[in-house]
């Protein structure tokens, strides 16, 4: 099964396409336009491992600000119904800085560094670290994105550190287990339109992403595959639908697979 999936990914890379880099599960090395503001709502329904009929709902409203051509800041709020009621469990600040860019027509190679500072009050219930809705802590990483006419490919590498969560919810695993390496590989393809004639045309993109983590102390890992479909409307709105599931599943999570639905709206020249 894993071999079939990996080969599908390789075929994807070889197929004729105009690539897209606005990935669903990861951020590319490119930046938002300076002085633009974006609003995002990311909703996930994650299936519980212990009870396959139970799904945890997570919602993350997000405000994104393009500070300059090279840097941007996001503010995120984490809502979850994991403990029966939908409550605010925390938030995060995400900052990205593009430090390298070589552009040609329909092409670029870019690199960016990012950091996410998260705070969460929920109980720690899994050894896998997730700073986007489960753990307090810091994540710092590097992203490299290559856009060539036909394909957009992106990879990232990050260090993640889990602090104790708020409201007395400590990190319940050994202290040495607080560090992990996160890594991702993403590819995107523009399916529609076949030719561009207007900004009002709906763009449809297909993405396939690999999302992984290895605990620095235990060496346990997970590696998820996350295919997704994206619609871009009027060249300023995004609707993303995705599904992620584990291919390697040694590093345990309480809900390890599920759906994602995201809505995004961008305002250019906002300030």
């Amino acid at each position, binding site marked *: 099964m894993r071999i079939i999936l990996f080969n599908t990914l390789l075929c994807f890379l070889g197929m004729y396409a*105009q*690539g*897209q*880099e*606005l990935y669903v599960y990861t951020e590319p090395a*490119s*930046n*938002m*336009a*300076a*002085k*633009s503001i974006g609003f995002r709502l990311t909703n996930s329904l994650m299936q519980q491992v212990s009870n396959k009929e139970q799904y945890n709902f997570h919602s993350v409203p997000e405000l994104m600000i393009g500070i*300059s*051509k090279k840097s941007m800041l996001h503010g995120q709020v984490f809502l979850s119904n994991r403990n029966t009621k939908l409550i605010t469990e925390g938030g995060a600040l995400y900052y990205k800085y593009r430090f390298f*860019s070589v*552009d*040609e*027509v*329909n*092409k*670029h190679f*870019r690199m960016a560094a990012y950091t996410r500072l998260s705070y969460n009050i929920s109980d720690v219930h899994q050894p896998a670290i997730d700073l986007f809705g489960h753990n307090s802590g810091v994540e710092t990483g590097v992203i490299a994105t290559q*856009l060539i*006419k036909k394909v*957009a490919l992106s990879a990232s590498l990050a260090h993640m550190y889990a602090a104790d969560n708020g409201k007395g919810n400590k990190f319940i695993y050994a202290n040495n287990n607080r560090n992990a390496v996160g890594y991702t590989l993403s590819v995107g393809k*523009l399916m529609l339109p076949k*030719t*561009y*004639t207007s*900004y009002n*045309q709906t*763009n449809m993109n297909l993405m396939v992403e690999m999302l992984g983590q290895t605990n620095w102390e235990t060496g346990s890992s997970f590696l998820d595959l996350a295919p997704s479909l994206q619609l*871009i409307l009027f*060249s*300023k709105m*995004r609707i993303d639908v995705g599904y992620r599931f584990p291919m390697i599943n040694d590093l345990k999570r309480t809900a390890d697979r599920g759906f994602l639905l995201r809505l995004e709206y*961008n305002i*250019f*020249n906002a300030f």
Partner: protein
Amino acid sequence: MKKLFFIIAVLMAANGQAQITKVSLQASGLTCSMCSNAINKSLKSLDNVEKVMSNISTSTFEISFKNNAAVNFDELKKKVEDAGFFVSKLTADVFFNNVKLLKDEHLPFAGMNLHFLNGKEQTLNGVQQIQVLDKGYVSSKIYKKNSSLTPMDCYKTGVAAACCASSGMIAGSRMYHVTLL
């Protein structure tokens, strides 16, 4: 007194009308329409811009300006870069009224200083197309190739050197290096 009026009239004639009627620029680093729209909106936010016609497939933007508006190439380039991309080519339609071009001439024109890199000596009349060859307006490959077209420092620095003072340029003022197409 008559001399003073005459000088003022000449200066007004030289700087009065907008002599750059249209700019066409191609951006690099993008393929998607949302990226193109970011550049489109960024260019439209300039006060002197009348209209922007975008071609998403070729990443080109045809910019027309308001009547008598001054045009600044660096301002256009900054708007593309603020959107997150770069300029790979910028050409301008320029109206010349009996302008004499000498080799390596530094010409104050339409509110900007132009240095014609490789044109032969001639008198320019009517609408001509020029391309800006400065750093950030062409690919680094083309920029390096063009470095041999002039021995002057200003192509590397983008500003007038002290040697240009004899033709009336203030040292340190912005110099655009262009070629006739």
